[in-house]
């Protein structure tokens, strides 16, 4: 006997509260959508497209029979080849991994890593243990970034207006831009880049600004975790970048700041925070973490006191908030 599940009637709160929807079709309740919802499975889900079952079995039986014919030759082992390198590559021992130090750029910072490679192919990233503040740790995004190297969507060529162009054409184009910019000191020229902590790039930007004083060098990140330069200036009187020392803090207040996970120095911060938490004797102090946040984060889950608050309300209400 088929059991019929009776869903409870929506409660008054559900009816009066905000109505959520998952697609535009659901929102406007199109007839096609209603029909789709009523059916458990979409039309034709149980049929193979273009092939009927009997025909499929016939084909498979014939394939297996033909595969069996190959057994006669399959008994003999195939001839295998050993293909060594044509030119020796320094340090490579086939079958043994090689490790390289590298780093994963995180906005204005970098995460030191060790990359394991097998015959030139990177396979695994781990934190570099020689960098003491992070202690060999790495973040999940840094770990996953190894897949970027094998991403089929990775750019393989230069493009201009969506069309692939050669490296020579890029150089021609750039030298033409440089020539026209040099004529008027770079007026009308803007370069957009991501933020970077690379000293080499800072040096290049400096020399570019000296050469083309009117050109605009703009840095943009979709996500930023630094307080605006104006805020730092208001608080400290000069343009500074904060470096938090959670190991020494007694009380920590995080306002919409997920310094355990989302910020660029998160690995160091979480280790530092743990140092302030460690209690070795009965008299050791212990830090206390207050978190005000608009979404549930690692910092919030670690906090001793957590207040859920919309970002828009934070600056207004936080001075009045007293921990329970």
């Amino acid at each position, binding site marked *: 006997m088929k059991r019929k599940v009776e869903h409870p009637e929506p409660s008054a709160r559900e009816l009066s509260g905000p109505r959520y929807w998952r697609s535009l079709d659901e929102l406007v309740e199109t007839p096609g959508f209603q029909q789709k919802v009523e059916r458990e499975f979409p039309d034709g889900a149980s049929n193979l497209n273009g092939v009927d079952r009997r025909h499929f079995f016939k084909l498979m039986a014939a394939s297996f029979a033909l595969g069996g014919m190959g057994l006669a030759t399959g*008994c003999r*082992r195939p*001839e*295998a*080849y*050993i*293909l*060594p*390198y*044509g*030119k*020796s590559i320094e340090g490579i*021992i*086939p*079958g*043994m991994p090689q490790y390289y130090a590298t780093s994963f750029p995180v906005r204005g910072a970098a995460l030191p890593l060790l990359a394991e490679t097998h015959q030139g192919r990177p396979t695994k990233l781990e934190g570099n243990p020689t960098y003491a503040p992070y202690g060999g740790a790495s973040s999940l995004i840094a770990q996953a970034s190894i897949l970027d190297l094998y991403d089929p969507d990775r750019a393989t060529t230069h493009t201009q207006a969506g069309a692939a162009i050669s490296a020579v054409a890029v150089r021609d184009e750039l030298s033409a831009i440089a020539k026209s910019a040099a004529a008027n000191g770079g007026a009308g020229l803007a370069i957009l880049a991501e933020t970077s902590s690379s000293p080499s790039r800072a040096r290049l930007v400096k020399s570019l600004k000296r050469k083309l004083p009117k050109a605009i060098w703009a840095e943009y990140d979709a996500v930023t975790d630094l307080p605006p330069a104006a805020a730092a200036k208001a608080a400290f009187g000069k343009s500074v970048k904060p470096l938090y020392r959670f190991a020494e803090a007694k009380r920590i207040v995080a306002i919409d700041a997920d310094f355990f996970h989302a910020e660029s120095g998160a690995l160091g911060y979480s280790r530092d925070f743990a140092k302030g938490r460690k209690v070795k004797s009965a008299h050791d102090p212990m830090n206390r973490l207050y978190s005000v946040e608009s979404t549930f984060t690692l910092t919030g889950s670690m906090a001793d006191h957590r207040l859920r608050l919309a970002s828009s309300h934070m600056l207004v209400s936080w001075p009045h908030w007293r921990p329970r």
Partner: protein
Amino acid sequence: MSNLFPKSSNRLPLQIIIFLVIFGGIVTAATTYYATPKYTRVGYAPVQPVPFSHEFHNGQLGLDCRYCHSTVEKAAHAAVPTTQTCMNCHSQVKKQSPLLAPVRESYESGDPVEWVRVHQAPDYVYFNHAVHVNRGVSCVECHGQVNEMEIVSHSKSFSMGFCLDCHRNPAPHLRSPDLVTELDWEHPGGPEAQLAEGEKFVHDWNINPPQSCTGCHR
């Protein structure tokens, strides 16, 4: 009451016997084939793209095995040398030899010389050259007298029994690790002295070769 079994079931005992005879025949034939040297390829000596003679280079000139198979002490895999290793000498010696044309071509282009594999452990077997060589198992124990081979051939069976013979009783097959590439070496004191020394190595280095399935079939 009708019969429980149809009449055709009277023939069933005979059919079962015939089936067993055929099945037994197949099993016997398969075992005979797969467990004999023909399948384990003893004597397999394929034609190589370059007629490299181990008998000449190692036996007469005295090049050490590890000059070419340089990774044997460090890795599981004893690598076949890169073309550049050949050219270390052959850029000076026999520069014009037509037999070396594939080597010169490979060195120019960087494409590998396609050496035909002679010894092949199956994929389901883990074998590590380094641990054997570094504990005094000579090349000759598995590969035979390569220093006398004009053309390399498969000289031992490489069956599981072959591996286990040594894993169960390693002492007669051990020697000082600095002698592993001396394929002609025999203990000056004869087999008894060799055995005594081997037993000393087994004790001193705590040599305990795995005999469980997972030792090799990892």
